[in-house]
């Protein structure tokens, strides 16, 4: 149990939050550089060295845009929707473990905002609230393209939540606990989750792409299809909030994938033995390992975005309900049988 004094907890929460929120501008920059590399061009390189201040330029541009409200739109709901999206995206990251528990003179410090024993259930619960921001934004804009985009996105998100939950359930069944720290500790050495549950990992990957409205599941906001979907009528910092929330969602889903299937923060332990460091260096190396793995997954998301065309809406629904859900249920059944027969 965590028993550090309140001020340390607040400092820890502030540090983790600042680090997490900085990931969104980083994603803005990295996405544009990586997609330029894939498309054989240079990308942003004017604003600061290597274009690193491009997100700052984007933020300043969005702040200075005109604030308008669509005619006959419900003003309160129109303003509430981006806030809801951002709220949910910020809340989900709270339970992801960044390093092993550190012991500092008898007090145990968990390097995450909160260590609850139903970690994965909390993530599923809060990410299922992500539908509200999009649905309310799409409806309150009083625009038929927004409404279509909002409906498509919400039905896509609730359909793929099932597959995500079942893929997570196989990992929970395998480890016997919902606690994220214990799931990472069970993957020490070479026992990474993906080696035991490859189908579960693949299902979770596809469901994560769909949940975050990324290509190839990007029809709700596809520019050439429905003008921009649920964020058609949003400009300026409101659009910035939606954008921010989407990138934070991607970072969180990558972090969850790394934690469940790719060994969490393990990976650089051999370096610690080589350098003969103490507990703090160990925690730092674990944090760096976690960061590298999340970065690789973010690059994978960007890579997929700029490689594949987008699915049509009926193809998305068919994939979610008729292909992925039966595979997920079958995977759960097979895992349960293997655990019952003592193979795992």
């Amino acid at each position, binding site marked *: 149990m965590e028993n550090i004094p309140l001020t340390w907890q607040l400092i820890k929460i502030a540090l983790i939050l600042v680090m997490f929120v900085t990931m969104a501008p980083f994603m803005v920059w990295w996405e544009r550089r990586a997609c330029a590399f894939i498309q054989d061009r240079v990308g942003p390189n004017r604003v600061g060295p290597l274009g690193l201040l491009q997100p700052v330029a984007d933020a300043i541009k969005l702040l200075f845009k005109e604030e308008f409200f669509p005619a006959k739109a419900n003003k*309160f709901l129109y303003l*509430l929707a981006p806030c809801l999206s951002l709220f949910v995206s910020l809340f989900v990251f709270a339970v992801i473990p960044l390093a092993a528990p550190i012991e500092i003179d008898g007090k145990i410090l968990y390097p995450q905002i909160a260590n609850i024993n139903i970690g994965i259930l909390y993530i599923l619960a809060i990410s*299922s609230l992500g539908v509200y921001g999009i*649905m309310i934004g799409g409806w309150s804009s009083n625009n038929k393209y927004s*409404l279509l985009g909002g409906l498509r996105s919400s039905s896509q998100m609730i359909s793929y939540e099932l597959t995500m939950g079942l893929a997570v359930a196989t990992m929970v069944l395998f480890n016997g606990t919902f606690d994220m720290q214990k799931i990472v500790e069970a993957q020490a050495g070479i026992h990474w989750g993906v080696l035991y549950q490859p189908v579960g990992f693949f299902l979770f990957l596809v469901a994560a792409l769909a949940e975050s409205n990324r290509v190839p599941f990007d029809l709700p906001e596809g520019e050439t299809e429905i003008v921009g979907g649920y964020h058609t009528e949003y400009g300026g910092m409101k659009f910035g909030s939606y954008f921010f929330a989407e990138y934070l969602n991607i970072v969180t889903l990558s972090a969850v994938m790394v934690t469940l299937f790719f060994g969490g923060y393990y990976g650089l332990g051999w370096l610690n033995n080589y350098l003969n460091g103490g507990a703090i260096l160990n925690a730092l190396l674990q944090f760096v390992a976690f960061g590298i793995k999340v970065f690789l997954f973010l690059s994978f998301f960007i890579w997929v975005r700029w490689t594949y065309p987008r699915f049509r809406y009926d193809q998305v629904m068919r994939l979610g309900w008729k292909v992925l859900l039966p595979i997920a249920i079958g995977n759960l059944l097979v895992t349960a049988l293997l655990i019952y027969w003592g193979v795992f």
Partner: protein
Amino acid sequence: MDWFVYGFAGFSIAAAIMVITRKNPIISALYLCLTLFSLAGLFVMLGAYFIAAVQVLVYAGAIMVLFVFVIMLLNLDPEKLDIKSFHPPKVLSVFSAFLLFGFLAFIFWNNKLTGITGVDTQALVDQNGGHLKVISAKLFTTFLLPFEITSILLLVAIVGAVIMAKRRV
């Protein structure tokens, strides 16, 4: 710690009053989500973490999404939203609600629950590594029959909802 309980309780009562007094159904639905959240907070204060998470996952994340969907798709005219929102016998309804509250509060305040203890003490929960294992064990042994019947009930509800909302081709 006490102030969390009083805060969540007061917040849920205030949000519940807002649910029944708003003209716009979407605002009522959002206030109901807020009520469900504060109730989840109360569940956490009781140590029932699992049902707090299930409350947010199922109630606030699925059932209320369904409500908001239906309200949006019904697309009621704005004029129809507020003519005479309240049913005329207002005073009698409010009075009977107060009477019901007084009756229930009297029973709950003077309860005789002290001295009775069940078997699932905190020690048993800690021994089993968390309340989740104990609840799951109960769900699949003592409560197996309601579990299976609930799954059939959900199947019936799916079929019924699809048939009800289908277009008559």
